């Protein structure tokens, strides 16, 4: 299990390359990568604030729960903070398990919890202003399935 909270750019493909290596009981690997979107074409920066100290603890708790619940053979969570450009990776989770259902469920569980329970806040800085991204009711509702 690896958890990394960082302001550095990271490369999801390089992360996948070392993931779950040498475990002969891994049959399924799922990755999720969140990317800075710029649908309107006016985004300058996605600024991510976090709560140093609590962030790492909250993610470790979530990841530990996923690892136990779905018997993961490996688990990785990376989340950036600071200023990100459109097209850059915001975060990534990777899960490895014996079978596909476990790997998919664990990855979705991690994502649902990271969205609403890890102390990150996103602000979109566009050509014309800056706005905090509002939490969605959907994201809170997503937790009820776990």
């Amino acid at each position, binding site marked *: 299990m690896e958890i990394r909270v960082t302001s550095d750019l990271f490369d999801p493909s390089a992360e996948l390359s070392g993931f779950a290596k040498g475990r002969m009981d891994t049959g399924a690997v799922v990755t999720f990568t969140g990317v800075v979107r710029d649908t309107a074409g006016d985004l300058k920066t996605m600024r991510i604030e976090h*709560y140093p100290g609590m962030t790492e603890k909250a993610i470790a708790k979530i990841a530990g729960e996923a690892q136990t619940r779905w018997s993961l053979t490996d688990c990785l969570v990376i989340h950036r903070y600071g200023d990100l450009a459109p097209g850059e990776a915001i975060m990534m989770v990777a899960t490895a398990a014996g079978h596909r259902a476990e790997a998919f469920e664990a990855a979705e569980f991690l994502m649902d919890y990271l969205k609403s329970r890890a*102390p990150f806040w996103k602000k979109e800085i566009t050509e014309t202003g800056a706005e905090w991204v509002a939490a969605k009711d959907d994201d809170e509702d997503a937790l009820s399935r776990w």
Partner: protein
Amino acid sequence: MDVLYFAWLRERIGIPKETVETDAATVSELVAELVAREERYATAFADTSAVRVALDQELSDFDAALDGVREVAFFPPMTGG
């Protein structure tokens, strides 16, 4: 006790962190004290349904007791992932 503010709470209150001397027994009482202090706190805490609280870096709620707590953090709903 240290009190931390994040995201738009930090912006409205104008500081990321302060040390507060208080006899407040619960989070709600602490918020009431802050709100009574200055307008910027009143603005930040106008709608507490939009505010989350962590005690010593664990998510908590406004009814929670403050005995022994060293760090209180206030912030909006999280938007990670």
